[in-house]
């Protein structure tokens, strides 16, 4: 019966999670990411970026709605869908109306489904999903939701930009695709095949490899295949150790062409590639640190580097998300009226701190923005990554990429209040 006592004590503790003040002068944004485990650094970097953006872009300017400040409340999801759902539940119980999430589209799907269910089942405790990184195209197509907004450029948009870049180089005739074997990797393959076939039908896809995610110990055979295929460009969506494995093995095996990636920057990757990856590794994403887009962007980045010397800004879009949310809340006049805020965000146009405009498509809630083709190098870098001499510099920009891409999204909309 001691265990019954244990159970009682446990429940008391569990209760204490759910009853933190619901009345406060801050607008809380839950941040649901892995803060422990193998991807803790990703989660902590994002947290630093959100906190910095809230502080710098909203709170220092006096907040919104006459002095309400943004507060980022971190929750650890341990990179597990179930833990993420529990964290979401706790956040809802605490009276939080906004949450940010981005790592892993799998969790993104779970959260989207849970938010849609919760907002239908508990209309008085609705919550909005601010997606700043989960890039599965399905989230703004078949699996879209009214309560989900994405500031990141998704796989389709990025691959549109990558295939554009490749299509412009007339001497490239052979392209090699290597990706992780799961929905994200497959989405990249599909988008790359589609884009290349439409823009340059003469390009041959000489290799299309899917490998198990995080299971390959030695990438050498893949490097050999890339070289043996005679590829002149490689496209990969790999991240983490898998990214380094592919890049290193290809370069070691003697491959000399460009490697187009989604996320081969910072988090130790830039430092590890160092001189070997110079002018070879391309990172295609929204927002860029080098060259600084404006004096304001320069100040913002420098401020971040000074405050968090161990981290880099790897998701510039977070600044857009914070600014646009603040604007929507200000214009609605309430942070609790989630439906109105969501309607305000739809179709909003915004001047991004990183230059150019950001526009949220009303039909699927995807942000449309400039996409930059950035190169890994040590020349002309104002803000290097990983405390090394290397960083990424924007070489090419595609204005408002994929503005009119078709979507299959059919979202159920609540009544406009």
């Amino acid at each position, binding site marked *: 019966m001691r265990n019954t006592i244990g159970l009682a004590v446990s429940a008391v503790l569990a209760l204490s999670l759910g009853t933190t003040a619901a009345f406060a002068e801050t607008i809380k944004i839950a941040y649901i990411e892995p803060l422990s485990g193998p991807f803790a650094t990703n989660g902590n970097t994002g947290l630093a970026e959100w906190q910095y953006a809230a502080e710098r872009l909203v709170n220092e300017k006096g907040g919104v709605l006459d002095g309400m400040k943004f507060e980022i409340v971190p929750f650890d999801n341990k990179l597990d869908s179930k833990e993420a759902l529990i964290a979401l539940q706790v956040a809802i119980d605490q009276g939080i109306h906004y949450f940010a999430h981005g790592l892993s589209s799998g969790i993104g799907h779970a959260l989207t489904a849970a938010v849609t269910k919760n907002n239908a089942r508990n209309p008085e405790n609705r919550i909005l999903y601010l997606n700043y990184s989960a890039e599965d195209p399905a989230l703004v197509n078949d699996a879209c939701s009214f309560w989900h907004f994405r500031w990141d450029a998704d796989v389709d948009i990025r691959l549109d930009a990558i295939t554009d870049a490749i299509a412009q180089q007339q001497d490239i005739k052979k392209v090699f695709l290597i990706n992780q074997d799961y929905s994200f990797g497959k989405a990249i393959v599909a988008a790359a095949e589609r884009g290349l076939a439409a823009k340059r039908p003469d390009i041959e896809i000489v290799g299309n490899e899917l490998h198990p995610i995080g299971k390959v110990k030695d990438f050498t055979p893949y490097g050999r295949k890339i070289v*043996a295929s005679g590829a002149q460009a490689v496209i990969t969506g790999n991240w983490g150790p898998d990214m380094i494995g592919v890049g290193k093995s290809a370069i070691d095996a003697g491959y000399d062409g460009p490697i187009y990636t989604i996320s081969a920057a910072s988090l130790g990757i830039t430092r590890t590639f160092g001189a070997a990856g110079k002018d070879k590794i391309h990172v295609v994403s929204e927002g860029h640190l080098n060259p600084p887009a404006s004096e304001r962007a320069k100040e913002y980045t420098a401020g971040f580097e000074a405050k968090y010397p161990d981290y880099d800004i790897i998701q510039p879009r977070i600044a857009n998300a914070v600014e646009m949310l603040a604007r929507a809340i200000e214009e609605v006049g309430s942070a609790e009226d989630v439906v109105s805020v969501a309607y305000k965000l739809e179709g909003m146009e915004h001047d991004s701190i990183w230059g150019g405009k950001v526009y949220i498509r009303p039909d699927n809630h995807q942000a449309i923005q400039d996409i930059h083709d950035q190169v890994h190098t040590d020349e002309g870098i104002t803000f290097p990554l990983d405390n*090394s001499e290397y960083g990424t510099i924007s070489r090419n920009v595609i204005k408002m990429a994929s503005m009119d891409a078709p979507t299959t999204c059919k979202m159920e909309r609540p009544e406009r209040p």
Partner: protein
Amino acid sequence: MDLVAINLIDGLFYGLLLFMLSAGLTLIFSMMGILNFAHASFYMLGAYFAYQISLYLGFWAGLLIAPPLVGVLGALIERYGLRRVHQFGHVPELVFTFGLAWLIEEVVKFIWGNNMMAYQEPEILKFALFHIGSNSIQAYKVFMIFTSMAIFIGLLFILTRTRIGLIIQAALSYPKTVEALGHNVPLIFMGVFGVGTALAGVAGVLAGPSLGTFPGMAVVLGSIVFVTIVIGGLGSLWGALIASLLIGWMTTAAASSSFQFATLLEFFGMTPPADLDESYLRDLWTLSLPQIGPILPYIFMILILVLRPYGLFGKRDA
């Protein structure tokens, strides 16, 4: 043909790396009768120690200093941890090493963080030694292959040709008798454990630059090392060598092949479904061999265990 030759070299590289890990593990198993789940963690520690040392003293100092450090740490853990748990029985012992693997990973994360370390090959080995076709073979890989071969020959020599080796072998089979002859058997055990973990440390120092130094490196390699020694036969050094090479070549060949399972299905007279999205077999139709390459060793192990539970070269029933 070129590709075959290259794959043989790459497979040899990976197989010998596996062997350096499995040699120590299989020695420890024949000594204490337990599978050391934390073995790959010592491999990781080797890489991290060497990285830290290489920041100050360069790669070669790391190669010399890190493995003994790992070995001493292993010996200490045997003396103050494993020996204590040993009295409780085999399952707690296994569970202890399992927990140790968890703890070491967390400690590594605490000290070095989650990111990949920029641990690099030494500059003088950073060049392409020779080319086969358009593919280049890095000098560092050749160096690794020769180092691990030298270690294997040295180990074999010590175990079979020297007095210490004979005492160790005797202590493995008849610990009581050897103790009665006046040898300090617990000390021998501690020594063998230390040497086994130091071997794992060497593997880590050598593999760190080419396979990456990050907190997940132990998990990635951990279970495959068990698979190796189970296939080879628990406690058999030769078995470990053969199994390591087999697995090395098997995974390399699988990764470099482009075999599609659709070919196999068509061979059995099936026709591809008109609408792939509706078919229940759609995953099989789109599957290729590289996709399942890393799990082939597990399938191989299950088959071996079902058909021949003591492995390829195992003498006794596990």
